[in-house]
């Protein structure tokens, strides 16, 4: 009796002794996991903070408010009111003149040129558009906020070091003095940069926008979605529900998984060789981009769609077969509707992946400098991530903030898509 009693106390003592060790181990592991999560979040927030602090200024643009005289002698010398002649008029001169009115004491060719360089070349288009919309403006004086050159924009936003030696600056002391005067007169205004969203690419940073790249991304993703969704669904349904399990289907499965791991650039090479060189499709076109991205996203979509089909419990299939539904009826009336949320989630994730893809598109010429906004999937264009790449490569200081701003837009799209996928999965998730 006392022997068993002793043994029991000894067991308890041993358990107690080991307990502290076990708990310490658990705590260590917990801290390790927490540390990993914190580290991950830290990197993500550093990335976000970096991009946002660099990029947020790109959403506003410096304008110079000037009294513009729409001089009939310049715009419409003949007085005929011929619209074509008006469109040919020298609006640069009008912009230049309005600026020179403010600085009558600027003389000499070099200084005059430097003065007119305060305004962007886009300012003349601004005036042209105004006259085109309302020809009655000719002969009147108006206060117009004209878009400033990117160097001025950088100076006003404080991205230029005024302390640096004159030779190391893009603007000399004289120009800085002019801008300071304009600022003192309250003529320097910052406005929301709508052009950033609507314009195509440009060599002038103040005129460059993501409109072209966004349209290109849209067409590319449209082609990708239209092709990869039905093909992926059909492949997944066939492999999961209809195909016999044999060596061939095993081979197909292995190959699909392999395709998911092929480097994207290889898909780009394939697209170049197949779609452009063999089929003669146009280079730089969203159509070809979409085809290449279809090849790339198909494995993702097929794998996730198969997982979604697999997660439909066999009892539903049995129920349908049990009342005499054919195999096709079972799949299309019961299994597919239940698997659809999962399949759509996979598709959205595949699309998000395609939206962020750059490498394969470089190979098919979507990296070209294209000013026009594409109007169809056959027009040459670029896409958002490639636009980021192009701007990151440009030397102008003003492209730095635009690179970050474009990244922000791209990230916003990606986050929106992934959030939608997660929300949808939560919403339609079933517990069997």
């Amino acid at each position: 009796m006392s022997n068993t009693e002793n043994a029991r106390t000894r067991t308890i003592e041993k358990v107690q002794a080991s307990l502290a060790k076990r708990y310490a181990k658990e705590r260590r592991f917990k801290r390790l996991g927490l540390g990993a999560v914190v580290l991950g979040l830290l990197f993500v927030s550093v990335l976000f903070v970096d991009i946002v602090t660099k990029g947020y200024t790109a959403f506003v643009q410096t304008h110079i408010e000037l009294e513009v005289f729409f001089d009939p002698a310049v715009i419409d010398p003949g007085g005929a009111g011929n619209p074509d002649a008006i469109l040919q008029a020298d609006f640069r001169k009008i912009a230049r003149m309005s600026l020179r009115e403010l600085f009558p004491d600027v003389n000499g060719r070099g200084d005059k040129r430097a003065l007119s360089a305060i305004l962007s070349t886009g300012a003349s288009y601004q005036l042209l558009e105004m006259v085109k919309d309302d020809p009655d403006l000719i002969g009147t004086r108006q206060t117009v906020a004209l878009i400033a050159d990117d160097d001025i924009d950088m100076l006003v936003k404080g991205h230029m070091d005024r302390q640096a030696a004159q030779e190391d600056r893009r603007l000399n002391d004289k120009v800085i003095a002019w801008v300071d005067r304009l600022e003192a007169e309250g003529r320097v205004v910052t406005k929301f940069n709508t052009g950033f969203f609507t314009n195509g690419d440009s060599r002038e940073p103040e005129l460059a926008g993501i409109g072209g790249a966004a349209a290109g991304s849209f067409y590319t993703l449209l082609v990708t979605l239209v092709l990869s969704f039905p093909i992926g669904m059909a492949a997944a349904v066939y492999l999961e529900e209809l195909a016999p399990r044999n060596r061939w289907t095993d081979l197909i499965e292995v190959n699909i998984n392999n395709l998911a791991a092929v480097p994207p650039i290889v898909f780009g090479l394939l697209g170049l060789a197949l779609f452009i060189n063999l089929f003669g499709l146009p280079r730089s076109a969203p159509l070809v981009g979409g085809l290449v991205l279809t090849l790339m996203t198909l494995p993702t979509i097929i794998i996730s769609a198969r997982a979604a089909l697999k997660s439909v419990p066999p009892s539903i299939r049995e129920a349908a077969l049990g009342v005499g539904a054919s195999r096709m009826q079972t799949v299309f009336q019961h299994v597919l509707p239940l698997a659809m949320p999962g399949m759509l989630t996979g598709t959205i994730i595949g699309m998000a992946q395609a939206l962020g893809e750059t490498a394969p598109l470089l190979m098919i010429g979507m990296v070209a400098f294209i000013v026009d906004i594409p109007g169809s999937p056959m027009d040459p264009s670029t896409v958002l991530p490639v636009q980021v790449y192009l701007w990151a490569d440009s030397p102008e200081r003003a492209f730095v903030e635009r690179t970050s701003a474009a990244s922000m837009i791209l990230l916003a799209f990606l986050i929106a898509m992934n959030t939608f996928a997660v929300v949808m999965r939560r919403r339609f998730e079933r517990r069997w």
Partner: protein
Amino acid sequence: MTKVQPIAADPKLTGGDLAGRAGAKPRDSDFRTVGDVRVANPRMTCTGVDVHYGDKHAIRDVSLDVGKNQVVAMIGPSGCGKSTFLRCLNRMNDTIDGCCVTGEIKLDEQDIYDPRLDVVPLRAQVGMVFQKPNPFPKSIYDNIAYGPRIHGLVASRTELDEVVESSLAKAGLWDEVKDRLEQPGTGLSDGQQQRLCIARTIAVEPEVILMDEPCSALDPIATAKVEELIDELRKNYTIAIVTHSMQQAARVSQRTAYFHLGNLIEVGETTQIFTNPRHKLTEDYITGRFG
């Protein structure tokens, strides 16, 4: 294990031949079927059925009749093949890869494993209720209406309404759900769900209903309701039921078949099986010595 002779093929061996075995109960190792596998008025007749899952020999040479308007209960320990055998009766095993069924199974005079036979009408004739209630994640109405719709059994919406009502009424569920036919079938209690599945099966007007442990997921009260229902359904349908519960077999069935390791050990009137089993294995099982 010796190869079991197909007893049914030799009518002399079936039935009352036990006297010829010196009055002793067959030994544990004797897997020949004891009792009369045939009935006077069969709906389904199975002869020499073997089932293989790949290398596994799941059913060994089973012959059994399912009598018209009768309930046949199949009992036996887990893994004895009773469910597998049941799933042969409407070719549900076709959906399992590597499953191979040989032998002859006839519904009335039609060989259901005839390669020319279409399984879709067969499954309309031989309906099935599963172990776990598995209503479609649709409304109660659509659950019942699904079968009649796909088979084109009804011409109009009113006719469909009638079928839904009568099926639910036959399953004893109408009064409980008539006010919420548009609500999802998955929102019902387990017992109601199982009766919904039975209603779904009888909406197609099958000749035979197969039930694979229909009460194993239900509480005792729901079980009692389903058992009552089975007894009621027997008037119009032929029923084969697999059950883990010997009490249930005793309550609902007229004939009982005892399976052991893929062999059909004994068949007989339910009262006889439970009061006076003729095979040693049957006796051991029903007296609770194993299983």
